[in-house]
Every structure is written in structure tokens, then in C-alpha cells.
């Protein structure tokens, strides 16, 4: 086999939040798809069929073991991506550069330093596996990347990526259809006729947006959210399965279930007990109750029957 790709998910948790007061988690979707998923698509777009994702929290020896196994099985080159950024690298160009290089390892840099992306020859993996993974000064070729890159280490950088995508400053295109200029709405989303959207904005699959809601300032609503009557979202991202109560003004924030991180004031709050936010449980396949809000809010998601109505 020509090439395998090993993706090491940053943050030590593929699903939950990182430790600390920030809510940031690598699994957060960016307009319908997580950065991890986007990396996997980029790799698959290169024709790489062998792709493995490992948790960064696991022992480094495990990923070294994976690379050695691949090398022994005949994989000629291994693309190692330690996920800490979103970078629009032309992986085909990286491979061509690597072929022309003098070393068995090519590492990718931008102006701020290494991006955690390396391309390794089979021989270099088999010769000295521990050094391959841990030795930063191993002789290697340097691939300087000058395109769009953003290091994802916080909720602030997550919002920057969302805004860049909505404003066309990077190659990310929201999922769903472009309902009007720079407004993307998934066909399965339901919007009341009296919803105001100031472009650009994004409303993901299964989202329900009630009357009087205003969406502005590059705000995004990810899948299966519900935004209740009259609430305004301003420079805000609502993460999947989140309910937002009526009449709120949510500004410069990221909301994930009952938790809200306000970027302007650098503070994270849990507002579930206050009844202002709630986590919407995913529909059960056995027909069980589709909605289980942690706060006392009675809004059955199963009532959603409209589809992609243009506000």
C-alpha cells in the first residue's frame, strides 16, 4: 500500500470538552462538520484508504506501534497529523515535495512554527521508531505552508474559524444549501416565517428556529438545536442539541447544551438550572421520548414538521 494516515486528535478527548474553564472541544462541528472530519476528508481526497484516528491521551507507544505495524505491512509512507489546527494544505503538493526531499521525514511549518503534520517514509519509521515520534530535531525536510491556517486551542479560535468560513476567508463551505447570499440553511431545518437572518449565517440539519428570532454577526446554529421565540444570536455559535430559551440576547458566545462561554468577558457559565439553556437529547430509535431537557422546558422536537422554509 502506498500511504496511510494516522490522525492524533488534540485535546485528549474526541467527544467531550477540554479541561479548564473554556468549553472548547476538538469535536465541535464547524458549520456542519468537525475539523477532524474535514482532515479525514482531505486525506481521503488524496486517495489514502488507510486512515486511523487515535486519542492523543493514549500512550504515544500505541501510535508508534500502529505506524510500525503499517510499515511492516508494507505501507510506504505515513502521514502523521497531530490535530491542533485547521490548515488548508495541498497534501498532493506535500507528497510531491517529500519525494523531492533528501530526508525520510518532511515536517510542515507555517510562519508560527510546526503544524504537527509530518510525512514519514517507511524506512524512517522502521529504523528508529521512538525518535520518529518524539525527537523534534531529527533531520527532516521542511515544508513551508503559506496558506490558510488557524490553530485551534480555544473557543476564541473556534469562533474565528466559523467567522472566516462564513465570510469566505477560508475554503470551508457550510453544509446545506445556500438559501440566499451567504446564508446557508440545511433542508431539514425548520424556520418560522418571522425569523430574521443577517448574512452571513448558518443553520444546520434538524434545527428549529422559532418566530422573532434574529441571527446576525456570523452566527451559526449546528444540528438539532432549537432557538426559542424572540431570541437574538449575535456573533454566536450554538453547538448541536442545544435549546436556547425565549427572549435572550446571546452575544459573542458559544453555547453547548447548558453551558455558555462568553468570549467578550472570558467567562463560562452553566445556565441549565436557570432554565435559560438546555441539552436536547438525541431522538431514540426505539420510539422513546425524543426530548429530554435538563431544565423545565416543554418543547417537543418531534413537532418539527416544516422543512427549509425561507425566512
Amino acid at each position: 500500500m502506498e500511504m496511510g494516515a494516522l490522525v492524533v486528535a488534540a485535546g485528549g478527548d474526541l467527544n467531550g470538552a477540554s479541561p479548564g474553564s473554556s468549553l472548547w472541544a476538538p469535536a465541535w462541528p464547524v458549520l456542519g462538520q468537525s475539523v477532524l472530519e474535514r482532515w479525514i476528508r482531505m486525506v481521503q481526497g488524496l486517495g489514502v484508504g488507510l486512515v486511523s484516528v487515535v486519542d492523543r491521551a493514549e500512550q504515544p507507544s500505541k501510535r508508534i506501534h500502529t505506524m510500525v505495524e503499517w510499515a511492516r505491512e508494507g505501507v510506504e509512507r505515513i502521514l502523521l497529523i497531530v490535530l491542533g489546527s485547521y490548515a488548508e494544505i495541498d497534501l498532493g503538493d506535500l507528497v510531491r515535495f517529500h519525494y523531492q526531499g533528501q530526508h525520510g521525514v518532511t515536517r510542515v511549518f507555517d510562519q508560527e512554527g510546526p503544524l504537527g503534520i509530518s510525512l514519514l517514509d517507511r524506512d524512517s519509521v522502521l529504523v528508529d521508531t521512538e525518535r520518529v515520534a518524539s525527537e523534534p530535531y531529527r533531520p527532516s525536510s521542511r515544508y513551508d505552508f503559506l496558506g490558510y491556517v488557524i490553530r485551534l486551542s480555544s473557543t476564541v479560535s473556534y469562533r474565528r474559524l466559523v467567522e472566516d468560513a462564513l465570510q469566505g476567508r477560508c475554503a470551508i463551505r457550510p453544509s446545506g444549501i445556500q438559501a440566499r447570499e451567504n446564508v446557508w440553511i440545511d433542508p431539514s431545518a425548520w424556520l418560522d416565517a418571522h425569523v430574521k437572518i443577517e448574512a452571513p449565517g448558518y443553520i444546520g440539519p434538524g434545527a428549529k428556529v422559532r418566530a422573532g428570532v434574529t441571527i446576525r454577526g456570523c452566527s451559526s446554529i449546528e444540528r438539532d438545536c432549537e432557538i426559542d421565540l424572540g431570541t437574538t444570536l449575535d456573533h454566536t455559535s450554538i453547538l448541536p442539541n442545544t435549546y436556547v430559551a425565549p427572549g435572550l440576547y446571546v452575544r459573542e458566545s458559544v453555547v453547548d447544551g447548558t453551558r455558555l462561554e462568553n468570549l467578550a468577558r472570558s467567562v463560562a457559565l452553566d445556565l441549565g438550572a436557570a432554565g435559560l439553556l438546555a441539552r436536547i437529547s438525541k431522538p431514540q430509535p426505539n420510539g422513546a421520548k425524543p426530548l429530554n431537557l435538563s431544565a423545565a422546558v416543554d418543547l417537543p422536537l418531534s413537532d418539527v414538521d416544516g422543512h427549509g422554509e425561507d425566512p
Partner: protein
Amino acid sequence: MTASPVAVKHLPEVNDSAAQRSFLREIKEFVEGSRQPRLIFDLSSIPQINPESIDLLLECVDHAERSDGEVCVTGASRETEVLLELTQASSVLNIFPTVLEAANGSPSQAA
């Protein structure tokens, strides 16, 4: 009747309905006997305001406005500032860092 009187108050306990009734009665008496009263609520001892307290503040705004007065809050934590903005209470409250600035009515608003 006193001209532009100022009162500095703390919010009562959330779960004490008797204290809340007494508090509102006191506020009402104060604003009804004043012209353009200024009510200042010192929130510096509250780590994070709750919706019930915000409702109480809004009732105070209602009473104060009937006498052409105003309600100020001071010493709000970042968490409280977020909640006041989120619930849009900040649009009818004057927010100052300190009681002194609120009493002077200086324009250096925190939010």
C-alpha cells in the same frame, strides 16, 4: 418630597419570599416619596445573579420609572454581567463598577 435621592441596597435572598415582599414594599415607598430617585444595587457579594433576582431588579425598574427615576447596579461579576446582558436586563439598568461612580452618575459604564 426629596429631590434626586439616592438609596444603596442589597438584593434579598432568593428563596425568602417574605423578605422579597418586604424589600419591594420598601422600594415602592422610597420611590413614591421621591422625585427622580436613584436606586443603586450593590451586587459585589453575588458571584452569579439568578433569574429571580433579575426579575426583582426589573420590578424595581418599573417602580423607579413611575417616579422618573433610575436603577443602577454596581460591583457585578463577569458572570452577572453576562446574565444581565443575556436576559436583556442590561438595556434598562445603568451598570457601574462601583457604588461611588453610580452615586456620582459618572459615565464610565462597565457593560
